[in-house]
């Protein structure tokens, strides 16, 4: 055989050009892109939800593309006709934005096996809620001997220079400010009392994290000793041996329902349906409830047990009574103005 340089170049270019036409190459499995949250949720879903969902899918892959809610909305809005994501996971505020912008496909409730098993508050035809994010106080037990028990502990003079908060870009930051306002005479639409309290908090502040993920690393570096925090976010840190504990304040921990949605114009609606069904099923939800994931379930058939039952609530009824819920339909329109105000007030 006569191998000349010309032949090799022609073959290489032809092989390269074939990459432009994937259908010409071997038959490929379909990919379902699931945008989950970064951090402990990504790990939980990769380990439990994805294998459970794959059992019900033929010839398909589930690809996890972790990003926060608002980034998911940006990505889908940039390309509505051919969305890069098939299944989205959202905090309550961005979920309303996504529905308003027409990015969501209604969930086929009639075909679902598990939809009716969810708590009534978690049922929503545009996208069911598959877990709750719980926000309370996170603290370092090595440096703070008596566990804090109230939101107002953050203002104590002995915590000067040791308190961390996030800015209001995230649900954590906004939810914290709204909760503060509601405890001091404000409401879901008026958080003026919270801004006044924020000014008083400034001497105690060691850092304002740019996002909730950074808050976790601030504990690790010893920059802050106490902050409002997400119950699940610290599980990874605890697993790695960082001294950090979560406690619900006596006024009640804040609960955000997190909903999962099928994206409009997605080519893989059946696969998306299978994934969401798996996420609502009692098997997956009870597995996710166990350590180390500790994800709060919404399916009423799941009996709360383990660490969640001890530190959060024994069953769904207690959850409804002990947790504080916020009305994001009222919060959303005000967010932009609040974030500007926060930017101005927080500057040193």
């Amino acid at each position, binding site marked *: 055989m006569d191998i000349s340089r010309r032949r090799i170049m022609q073959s290489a270019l032809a092989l390269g050009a074939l990459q432009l036409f994937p259908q010409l190459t071997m038959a490929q499995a379909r990919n379902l892109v699931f945008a989950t949250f970064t951090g402990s949720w990504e790990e939980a879903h990769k380990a439990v939800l994805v294998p459970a969902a794959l059992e019900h899918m033929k010839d398909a892959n589930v690809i996890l593309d972790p990003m926060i809610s*608002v*980034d998911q*909305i*940006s990505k889908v*809005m940039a390309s509505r006709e051919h969305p890069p994501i098939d299944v989205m996971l959202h905090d309550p505020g961005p979920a309303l*934005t996504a529905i308003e912008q027409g990015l969501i496909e209604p969930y086929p409730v009639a075909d679902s096996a598990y939809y009716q098993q969810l708590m009534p508050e978690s049922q929503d035809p545009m996208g069911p809620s598959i877990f709750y994010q719980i926000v309370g106080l996170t603290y370092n037990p090595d440096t703070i001997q008596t566990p804090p028990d109230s939101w107002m502990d953050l203002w104590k003079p002995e915590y000067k*220079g040791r308190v961390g908060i*996030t*800015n209001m*870009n*995230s649900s954590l930051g906004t939810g914290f400010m709204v909760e503060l306002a509601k405890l001091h005479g404000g409401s879901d639409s008026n958080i003026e009392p919270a801004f006044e309290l924020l000014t008083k908090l400034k001497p105690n*502040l*060691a*850092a*304002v*994290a*740019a996002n909730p993920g*950074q808050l976790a690393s601030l504990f690790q*570096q*010893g*920059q802050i000793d106490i902050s409002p925090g997400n119950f699940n976010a610290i599980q990874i840190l605890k697993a790695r041996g960082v001294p950090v504990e979560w406690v619900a304040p006596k006024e009640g921990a804040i609960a955000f329902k997190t909903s999962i949605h099928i994206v409009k114009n997605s080519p893989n609606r059946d696969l998306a349906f299978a994934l969401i069904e798996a996420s609502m099923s009692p098997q997956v939800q009870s597995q996710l409830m166990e350590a180390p994931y500790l994800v709060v379930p919404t399916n009423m058939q799941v009996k709360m047990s383990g660490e969640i039952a001890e530190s959060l609530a024994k069953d769904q009824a207690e959850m409804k009574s002990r947790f504080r819920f916020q009305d994001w339909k009222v919060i959303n329109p005000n*967010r*932009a103005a609040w*974030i*500007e105000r926060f*930017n*101005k007030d*927080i*500057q*040193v």
Partner: protein
Amino acid sequence: MSARNHDVTVYSLRYGLPLAAFFVLFFITPLLLLVLVSLHDDTAVSVWGVAQYAKIFGEGLALRVLGDTLWLGVQVTVLCLGLGYALAWAYVRSSPTTQKVLMMIIVMPLLTSVVVRTFAWVVILGRQGIVNELLLGWAWIDKPLRLLYSREGLIWALANVQLPLMTLPLITTLQRLESNLEDASAALGANAWRTFRRITVPLSLPGIIAGSLLTFSATITAFITQSLVGGGQMLFMPMYIYQQASSLQNWPYAAAISLVFLVAVIGCVTLLSYLGRLSKGYATT
């Protein structure tokens, strides 16, 4: 025989067309789209108007953030200039072996990712970081200093991250200086300080301008370092734009502040280039 003698003093732009087309498609067009998006009044991008620019110049937060960012750039550039000039000076006056080692040290930060370098600064400046541990160990302070999430810490971290951008142009310029000029100046009776002030600095002005331009531009757009070392209390333009675009989905406002930022940076660069033109009077060989 029809020999066509084309004019060799004029260059045909034909061969630049593919690159120009690429440039127009992927650079000019998105920029124009940005301008168009910024001329809308509402976040759904449907109503035309100049409300975004009215908001920027009327309400004040955007201008304050812009001023803060440009001032940060100036502070870091001045610090970098001091450190970079000393480093370039040492490089030019070392033996070849030392020069190889120094060049490795200078270029090494450019070979590492910015995120890794910034995290290294987080480790150095943190409450349990190297600086605080040393100072506490020597009992110069009795409780850790707040170096991280402070402006001073940010300036030092940015100066370190952008130092290669200042040092390399300065090394190039200082190497091209004729050492005879300095000898001539000494022979005519000037002391070392006068030689430096009247001969070396004016002759190295092109390098100073080039280094300053690079450092300034890189500093004010350094999103990662500003966020990780600066924290959430100091708001600069990159984070402000990201916040408006991504968290709030307010594309027209984000586009408007991006364009204002672009114009401000172009203004600063023009100013620096003008200073550069003043140095043409001191041209080297």
